[in-house]
């Protein structure tokens, strides 16, 4: 294992095929600790797939991804890669929180139980402590009064905030957001973005796939524009948004702004 790098995430020439379709064509990215990276791009550009590769929900066909200095999904022995056991992969995922476009809350559990399930069942946090922390997290996302509500009784924005609290309950070192506001009614987007902004300010390392240009301009330390499975352009949000160098980026920004 290498010395602890100052990068939380390091991706080197990551390639991925779906059948004969190459969706990631040698993606290389670094995310330093405590920084927020926003991934922009048209649908089908591979940004969500790349995000899902980081916590091994998708396997990669080429390159390497490491989080916190540890290779994801594989162990390197000598010059050979070995697939990890499911148990090892689960352990790695515990350090990486993920928030989905469609929330994916567990519908048979209340808001509180959604949050408590993983810390209590997987990390072995004592019940009382897990519940206490879950209540604090719900308070942090502004839902202290919806502790006993089932997901079906919550609005989309409230569900997404519970989902963020659920991911945070595992005390991850990295948070992945896969278009967290795309399935929300416009007036509910603000609450979710507020929670994410608050999280970024607290020093969480985050990778956010989003179409919220205003939000990424304000919160992102770095912005990456992807198209057709490659990184087209990257840099400070102001540079990428106000002074795009590539024609593809210019076209995209014109259509979304």
């Amino acid at each position, binding site marked *: 294992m290498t010395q602890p790098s100052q990068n939380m995430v390091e991706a080197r020439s990551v390639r991925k095929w779906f059948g004969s379709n190459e969706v990631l064509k040698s993606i290389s990215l670094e995310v330093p600790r405590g920084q927020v990276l926003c991934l922009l791009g048209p649908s089908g550009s591979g940004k969500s797939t790349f995000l899902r590769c980081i916590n091994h929900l998708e396997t990669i066909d080429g390159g390497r991804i490491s989080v916190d200095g540890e290779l994801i999904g594989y162990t390197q022995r000598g010059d050979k890669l070995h697939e990890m056991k499911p148990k090892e992969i689960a352990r790695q995922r515990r350090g990486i929180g993920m928030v989905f476009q469609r929330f994916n809350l567990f519908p048979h559990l209340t808001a509180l139980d959604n949050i408590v399930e993983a810390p209590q*069942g997987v990390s072995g946090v004592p019940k009382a402590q897990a519940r206490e922390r879950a209540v604090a997290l719900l308070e942090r996302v502004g839902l202290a009064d919806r502790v006993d509500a089932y997901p079906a009784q919550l609005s989309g924005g409230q569900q997404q905030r519970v989902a963020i609290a659920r991911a945070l309950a595992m005390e991850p070192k990295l948070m992945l957001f896969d278009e967290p506001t795309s399935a929300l009614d416009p007036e509910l987007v603000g609450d979710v973005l507020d929670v994410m902004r608050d999280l970024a300010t607290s020093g969480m390392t985050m990778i956010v796939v989003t179409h919220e240009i205003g939000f990424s301009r304000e919160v992102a330390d770095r912005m990456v524009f992807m198209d057709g499975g490659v990184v087209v352009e990257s840099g400070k949000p102001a540079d990428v948004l106000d002074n795009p160098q590539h024609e593809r980026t210019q076209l995209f920004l014109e259509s979304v702004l």
Partner: protein
Amino acid sequence: MTDRVDFDDSDDVVAVPLRHPGRWIAAVAILLVLAALIHSLWTNTNIIHSSITEFLFDPRIIKGVGLTIFITVISMVIATILAIVLAVMRMSANPVLRAVSFGYIWFFRGTPLLVQIVFWGYLGLLYSQIAAGIPFTNIQFFAIDTNTLIPALVGGVIALSLNEAAYAAEIVRAGLLSIDHGQREAAYSLGMGPGYTLRRIVLPQAMKVIIPPMGNETISMLKNTSLLAVVAVAELYTAATQISAQNLRQVELLIVASAWYLFMTTVLSIPQYYLERRFGRGTARELPLTPFQQLKAAIARGRGRSNSRREVAQLQKGSLS
């Protein structure tokens, strides 16, 4: 604008209900047919009605009822556990497990239940002894006479369980398939392993799809226990036929047995209803009322005490807390 309806502050709708004369006509016609049928059975001199009441609570019948319930419950429990294992095997990434599960379901669904029961009943003819040892050698740890190890009752339970498991496996698989893949992904992303995800996230949600057809299967099982008559297990049907073999009142005893089967089926539907409610939590914004609560609401409505919607809302609130 002169015929304004009196309108007070509460905006509850108090309207004269629409009449449905067709329903009354249909109900009267059906009741007439039913009455004629019952009358013809009741006045049929070939049926000795006193023997129905005489044997309804006969100790042999009651024992048969007990045994029928016992076989049904034990077989369903074994079958359900086996079915979950088979369904998970069928969906696993391991090709050997998938093939074994497929083969099992193919075989046990493809041969008649009656044949399977007879086979287990006559296992003693095929293998006179059952022994544990190392295969293809003469080393033997112990050996037991087959008919001692597997008496008719055990053989019957094995046959019913193994057969039912094949059907139930497909029901469980349908339930597992009905759960959105996003649920598994969310569980994995939280660091849950595949086994934990299945147990705590996927199966509890699949239950609401699994329970209604499994209720069907339980009722089938209850009646299929009568097939054990062929291997002389003294369950309800066997008990009834043994009595009628002596007194030749076949129809009367079949009516006795049917009455008991109907009664047991009715009783079995109650736990199913409450199981469905239990696993339906969180899927609807409000839980449906239990029959008991519906009755209470209906009585309240009949008295005209309050409007039904408010009553329903109150009851639902009570049932959730």
